[in-house]
């Protein structure tokens, strides 16, 4: 076990947010920590990594009580990626990644051949070799996040903890960052704990989930087990969680129906567009929507016949009536 809390109470200035928590992070696994905003995800992370004291209970790193480790010993066990940007725009990327070697270097931080090798490897793993001569101020948010991950990798610790590494990123970058972390756990044998709001991606990529609900209780398990047990839907307390796809479905009021004559992908996406306008596909109805192969969508019956080249036009037409 790489990281463990036993009977942990967390909170600020003696006011508990959650108690009796037993979070566990095993070797070589990617754990995604999910939960609604404000339940204490960041507080639990900070308590586990030693940036905040626990109100009660104890934290163990690699079986050792955290309180007994010096800050240097801690730095060799666990590295961090926090939210927030460093302020220095004139900070060269290579220097920032090299900071990760600090726990391993002497009093003046001189880098030896092993340090150079680890830095090189970190740049390679995070796929930012081409960025190494840039300054922080020249990076996009996604690039900056990779640089921060490379710094944590250069620290060469068995465990990595990341606080919302996908916040402020667009979907392709969120996906690439989570894929990168998944690879690091699977191929480099790192234990990785990250908090995120990416339920979809977490369900696909995480080995286990930590779920914290609004009452402050923590459920742990493989994503599939949590879906099957219903814990996932309960933790978010939201309607619309679809256990079939593991995603959220928008809830539409479907009060009208039509017969849909279309095939494959076109049928799938037409159903979505229709649902948004309040129409469901039925076996029988006066209204019929037909997709002419390589041609338009043809609507017959109420609320009025029409031909549409795009589904967007069709939705606008249906809404008007």
């Amino acid at each position, binding site marked *: 076990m790489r990281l463990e809390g036993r009977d942990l109470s967390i909170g600020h200035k003696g006011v508990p947010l959650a108690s009796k928590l037993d979070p566990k992070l095993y070797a070589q696994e990617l754990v995604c920590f999910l939960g609604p905003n404000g339940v204490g995800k960041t507080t639990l992370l900070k308590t586990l*990594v*030693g*940036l905040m004291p626990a109100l009660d209970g104890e934290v163990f790193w690699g079986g050792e009580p955290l309180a007994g480790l010096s*800050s*240097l010993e*801690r*730095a*060799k066990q*666990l*590295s*961090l990626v*926090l939210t*927030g940007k*460093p*302020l*220095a725009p*004139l*900070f*060269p990327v290579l*220097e*920032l990644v090299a*900071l*990760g070697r*600090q*726990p391993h*270097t002497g*009093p*003046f*931080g001189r880098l030896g051949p092993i340090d150079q090798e680890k830095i090189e490897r970190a740049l390679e793993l995070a796929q930012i070799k081409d960025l190494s001569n840039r*300054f922080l101020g020249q990076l996009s948010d996604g690039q900056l996040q990779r640089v921060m991950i490379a710094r944590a990798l250069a*620290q060469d610790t068995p465990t990595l903890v990341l606080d919302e590494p996908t916040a402020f990123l667009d979907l392709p970058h969120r996906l690439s960052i989570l894929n990168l972390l998944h690879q690091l756990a699977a191929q480099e044998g790192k234990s990785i704990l990250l908090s995120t709001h990416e339920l979809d991606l977490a369900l696909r990529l995480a080995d286990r989930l930590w779920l914290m609900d609004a009452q402050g209780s923590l459920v742990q398990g493989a994503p599939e087990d949590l879906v099957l047990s219903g814990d996932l839907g309960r933790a978010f307390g939201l309607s619309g969680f679809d256990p079939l796809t593991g995603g959220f479905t928008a809830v539409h009021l479907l009060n009208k129906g039509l017969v849909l004559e279309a095939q494959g992908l076109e049928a799938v996406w037409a159903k979505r567009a229709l649902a948004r306008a309040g129409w469901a596909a039925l076996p029988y109805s006066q209204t019929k929507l037909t997709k002419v192969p390589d041609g338009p969508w043809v609507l017959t019956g109420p609320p009025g016949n029409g031909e549409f080249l795009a589904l967007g036009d069709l939705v606008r037409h249906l809404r008007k009536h």
Partner: protein
Amino acid sequence: MRAGLFSALGLLGVLLGLGLLLWGSVSLPLDSLFGVIGDSQGADQVVRKILLELRLPKLAVAALAGASLALAGLLMQTLFSNPLAGPDVLGISAGASLGVALLVLASGGTVVSGLAGSYGLAGAATLGAFLMLLVVMGFSEKVGDPTTLLILGLIFGAMAGGLVSILIYFSEPDQIQSYLLWTFGSFRGLSMEQLWVMVSLLLPGLGLAVFLAKPLNALLMGEGYAASMGVEVKGLRRKLLLSASLLAGGVTAFCGPIAFLGIAVPHLARFLFKTADHKVLIPACLLVGADLGMFSELVAGVPGSSLSLPINAVLSLVGAPVVFWVVLGRSK
């Protein structure tokens, strides 16, 4: 490239130093310098006196003060993770002023002279600077936002200024004069003994800073990251506090509150060397600071005339555009 820049700055320093020795109200030829170095008997005793007792201490003080304030500024900017932090903005100079005002005005203006006076003055300024920095640091642990902290520093500076005004109001004219002369800021008029007292304050501050280069680099990323990289953040804060108040307090005690240099030089150094690495920035700030100190003293002396401008006026004219440039550059 880095070595070239360092050599260029060093060479510039040597030239400025030569300029300070040779130019002034009386200009001296270059060979008079060799005369004094080579043969103390044959040289003109007046020239010798000017060079060794007036211009050499002035040169040393200008270079030392510039280097120390620049380094103090760099430490403060990293400590507060604020590009506009510096000894005068965060109220440290005001703290030193308050210390000196209390000492000078309470003691009847007599303590400014003599060796005991230099220790007293230095002690009061350093203690004042240290206490003010302590107050600002205390708030910095409560207030996370650097901008709020900067405003707090300005308010504390204003409060210290208010106390000084009250002290002045209740003081005799000659006491006020010795205090006012100190506030104008000057690299001149220090005896060799006073110079040594100043050096004895600055060297420990400098020595401490050199050993902090590595954790300072980690601190650039914020305190959470620094702690995760094995830095004892509380200890580091205390050491930075001590080093910065020794450096700023030591200079302020003997030269008065010097404006702008502390803020502007770290930015110049970062701009020149294109790095955030304190192992480069610390020597760079020392060199650029010393050069700027000597340059402003050279300008303030107005070579060829008997005029001498206040050093703060010259520095503000050089320093203000740099701060302006930083503010503009960050708003982009």
